[in-house]
């Protein structure tokens, strides 16, 4: 059972992360690693495309919380795209929509970082 994979892809100076599977206390290290790698590469404009994410527990939200301050201090942000109903729901319960900007599509999330990111792929 492959419980979580996280691929990444660059579009201009935005980095896209694609978690596929579920994030709980067992799989969170992989997600955390992907966030930390982006930060260490000074890629502070991060879009997490959640289309393949079936579930996220507080461990995953904690991983974002642990990274967000450094990301924002460096002029970047962590934005989310294509949340399914379950994941959106968990965000709503926690009031995370006040802390993170979410977008219906990946393209919108990329565009939100400003012009000239639309190309790439």
């Amino acid at each position, binding site marked *: 059972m492959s419980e979580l994979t996280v691929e990444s892809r660059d579009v201009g100076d935005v980095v896209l992360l694609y978690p596929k599977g*579920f994030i*709980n*206390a067992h799989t969170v290290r992989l997600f955390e690693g992907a966030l930390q790698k982006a930060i260490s590469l000074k890629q502070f404009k991060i879009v997490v495309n959640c289309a393949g994410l079936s579930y996220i*527990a*507080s*461990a995953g939200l904690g991983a974002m*919380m642990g990274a967000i301050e450094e990301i924002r201090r460096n002029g970047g942000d962590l934005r989310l795209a294509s949340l399914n109903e*379950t994941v959106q729901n968990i965000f709503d319960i926690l009031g995370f929509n006040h802390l993170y900007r979410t977008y219906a599509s990946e393209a919108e999330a990329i565009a939100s970082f400003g012009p000239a990111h639309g190309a790439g792929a």
Partner: protein
Amino acid sequence: MPRGRNKPSLILSLPSETAYLGLVREVTKKMAEVGGFAEPVAERLSLAVDEAATNVLEHAYKGATDREVELRFEDRGPDFRVELVDTGQMVDPRAVPQVDLDKFVTERRTGGLGMHLMEKIMDSVTFRRSARRNVCALVKHKTPVGEEPPGR
């Protein structure tokens, strides 16, 4: 095997390894659905139980993987009830933080979310200690379909 209970009950004993949290979630979801909860509610209940089990592994057992956690699902009358039993460290109520979302960002706090989720999702979350065991009891009242309060 007492008779006439008329609802399924389930006892799951697990080694204290995070690898089994996926099983905890799936079993909880099934039991909640069988208990009559709609799929989105069953999904939330499984999150609450995942969080409770994660806390047992992380805090009661401090990451030791050679211990055991027991989950008991009882579906009686108007309540869906899950109990998690461990033989580790007791919960210190003073250690349980109140969540202030604004402080999360400014103070770089990452903890406290799990308990907050459990309390938001369940109708009651209680901890008790008996016979050297810790019991965390999660209860959700059944509401007739369509009367589900929003945000639950």
